[in-house]
């Protein structure tokens, strides 16, 4: 059986691979926009006027890709720093917002959109943020791979009497059993997190419960 350390390495590799694929797309689009600009220069050299709207479109396309690239790098950087310390006090909301953002691409490849609705502005935890993200990532994979997901999965955060709950909601009835069967795979991680993972809302949501400081 794979150790938790191996799982963490695999998780980091998987997120990095996904992010670099997305960055590669940003570079590919930017590369083509620059090429298009080259085509316009060529047209200009042939005394054919390039319409200002076409140049404006090039500008907008480049700006959009720069913003997209900045967002991807920011997310990856934040994610990487969650592995700096094994145990620490952290705010769950921005950590989850970031990992949900990083999961948009793998979810998108399954035609699923992620809707992050934290429910609380801030929720302090004392624990291992990297391991908690691994748990969320694996749980989401379980839901996506079960084929039970709808078009939109809602990721919510709730606080209740010293416990933080992260729920993935929007599961179809048909996939509940498939998700349930996979829960045992995450038992080791949940033990490390002193938490619990279970199906709630008649199986419509998969929820992670961990101790909170609030």
């Amino acid at each position, binding site marked *: 059986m794979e150790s938790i350390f191996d799982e963490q390495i695999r998780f980091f590799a998987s997120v990095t*691979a996904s992010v*670099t*694929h997305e960055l*590669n*797309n940003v*570079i*590919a*689009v930017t*590369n*083509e*926009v620059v*090429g*298009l600009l080259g*085509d316009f220069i060529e047209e200009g050299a042939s005394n054919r006027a390039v319409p200002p709207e076409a140049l404006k479109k090039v500008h907008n*396309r480049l700006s*959009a*890709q720069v913003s997209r690239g900045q967002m991807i790098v920011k997310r990856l950087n934040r994610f990487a720093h969650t592995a700096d310390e094994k145990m620490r006090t952290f705010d769950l909301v921005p950590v989850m917002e970031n990992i949900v953002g990083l999961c948009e691409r793998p979810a*998108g*490849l*399954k*035609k699923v959109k992620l809707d992050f609705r934290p429910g609380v502005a801030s929720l302090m935890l004392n624990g291992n943020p990297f391991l908690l993200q691994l748990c969320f990532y694996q749980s989401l994979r379980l839901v996506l791979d079960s084929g039970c997901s709808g078009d939109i999965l809602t990721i919510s955060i709730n606080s209740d009497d010293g416990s933080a709950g992260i729920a993935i909601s929007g599961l179809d009835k048909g996939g509940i059993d498939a998700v349930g069967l996979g829960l045992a795979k995450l038992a080791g991680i949940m033990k490390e997190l002193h938490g619990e993972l279970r199906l709630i809302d008649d199986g419509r949501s998969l929820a992670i419960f961990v101790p909170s400081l609030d």
Partner: protein
Amino acid sequence: MPRIRVMIVDDEEDLVSILVERLQFRGYQAEGVLSGKEAIAKAAVQEFDIAVIDVKMPEINGIETLRRLKKIKPSMKVILLTGHGCEAEGEEGLAEGAFDYLIKPVNIEEITAKINSALGISSRE
């Protein structure tokens, strides 16, 4: 010489529209679609000489799109676009009948050279 009919298949909308624009600028009759499903539907009703298909796409990926296109249009040439570290997917595509694969990011000259090579054209008129 008739214009070469090219279909670009990628879920990156911006990339598709720019590639189409740049191929048209070079005299190709290019059209773009954003999914394997759309590519199959379009190929069923319209003739294309060649398709340039991204491997990583939601639902029906590039390899599956290639398989289905080859079933309905066996003579249509296919070039796959893949990412760094995903050369195995390109090789799988070759085994499924793709003419060749390119690793993203590619420039337009590489694409047109590969298209021309697939169609046995030495240079563009």
